[in-house]
């Protein structure tokens, strides 16, 4: 075994082979690896972003909940206020109604009293007439004494 030009040929060939690999074999492998790396990086970034979004959403939902609670409290307070207002108004209205009913009652009673008085007056005149006719012993001519009777009734 001695060193000869074969070695030189093999060295040239090896250099060409290495060049070939660098040019045509290495880049596709590297591209595949790079793509894989990018995919993983993208996936991780997406996961990170989703996590961030979730946090934001949670924060936002808490905010909305707090606002809603506040609003509900406000509404309750308003309702209570309105409630008392309605009650007050109803009370006032009831008072007015009461007064009206009482007044009507008074008016009715007055009317009744007046009517009773009228009736009484009529009856009293009749009684007076009867009494007078008995006292006089004869029939009082109602026609003749009508003006007198009327005067009496008016007096009573």
């Amino acid at each position, binding site marked *: *075994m001695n*060193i*000869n*030009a*074969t*070695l030189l*040929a*093999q*060295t*040239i*060939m*090896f250099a*060409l*082979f290495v060049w*070939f*690999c660098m040019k045509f*074999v290495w880049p596709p492998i590297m591209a*595949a*690896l790079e793509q*894989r*790396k990018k995919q*993983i*990086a993208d996936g*991780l970034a997406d996961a990170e972003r989703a996590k961030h979004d979730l946090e934001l959403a949670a924060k936002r939902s808490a905010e909305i909940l707090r606002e809603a609670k506040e609003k509900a409290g406000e509404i309750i307070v308003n309702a209570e206020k309105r409630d008392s207002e309605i009650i007050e108004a109803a009370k006032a209205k009831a008072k007015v109604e009461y007064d009206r009913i009482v007044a009507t009652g008074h008016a009715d009673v007055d009317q009744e009293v007046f009517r009773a008085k009228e009736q009484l007056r009529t009856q009293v005149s009749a009684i007076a007439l009867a009494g007078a006719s008995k006292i006089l012993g004869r029939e009082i001519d109602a026609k003749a004494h009508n003006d007198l009777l009327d005067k009496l009734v008016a007096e009573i």
Partner: protein
Amino acid sequence: MSSEVHTSAGYIKHHLQNLTYGQLPDGTWGIAHSAEEAKAMGFWALNLDTFIMSLLLGAVVMLVFRSVAKSAVSGIPGGLQNFCEWSLEFIDNSVRGSFSGKNDMVGPLALTIFFWVLTMNLMDLLPIDYVPLLMSALGVPFFKIVPSTDPNATFGMAIGVFVLVLYYSVKMKGLGGFVGELTLQPFGKWGMPVNLLLEGVNLIAKPISLALRLFGNMYAGEMIFILIALMGGAWAGLSVGSATLYGSQILLSLGWAIFHILIVTLQAFIFMTLTVVYLDMAHQEHH
């Protein structure tokens, strides 16, 4: 003319001779300095180059993966980790594709086999004279750097796989089930001898084909590299013929090396896939 033939034959023989350690004809133990001496050592000899190279390459693969595994980060993988994950995913996918049973050992085994065979095969792409020349300068008579061109290495691995196949066949089906599978198919119990013959051949063919396929492909590839290299050895002064031969040696070996990238990877993949398939068969009741 005859001397040229002799040197060509010598060149080829030299390249195909392993560095063998064993008992020399004078009774002492040492390294064989010729093919005849190596042959005379019989079975109890060791191919040191195969041994050293395969161990070295196995160790390199393991160390690389170990260092990556140790420093692995869960974020965006960089460089080597990315490559290792990529290969792991690839092997995991092909194991899932062809192995239907449940065995945690098969995935790592496939990974080991693939990368070990791949690195051993890749040694084929180094120019064939580099290492032998370096070694002869160091006083070592022979050195084959491609362990997978040594049938001892390929048969060793195939026997390892075969032992696993036997072990899992017995473990999964029981001894009775395994023996039954060998003797009761395909002709039922009355055709027992024929069954045993057929199934036995079927079983034995697994490791033999596994070993011979890898060995044959790599050995033939190596042989063609040697034959191409011989063209440069036909240099006989500055003439058109010599220059043509010299140039075509470069081009042919370049072409063959480029083509070999494919073969090297393919053979490693086939060895791995067949191992997985054989183990899958061992796990299944019927095949």
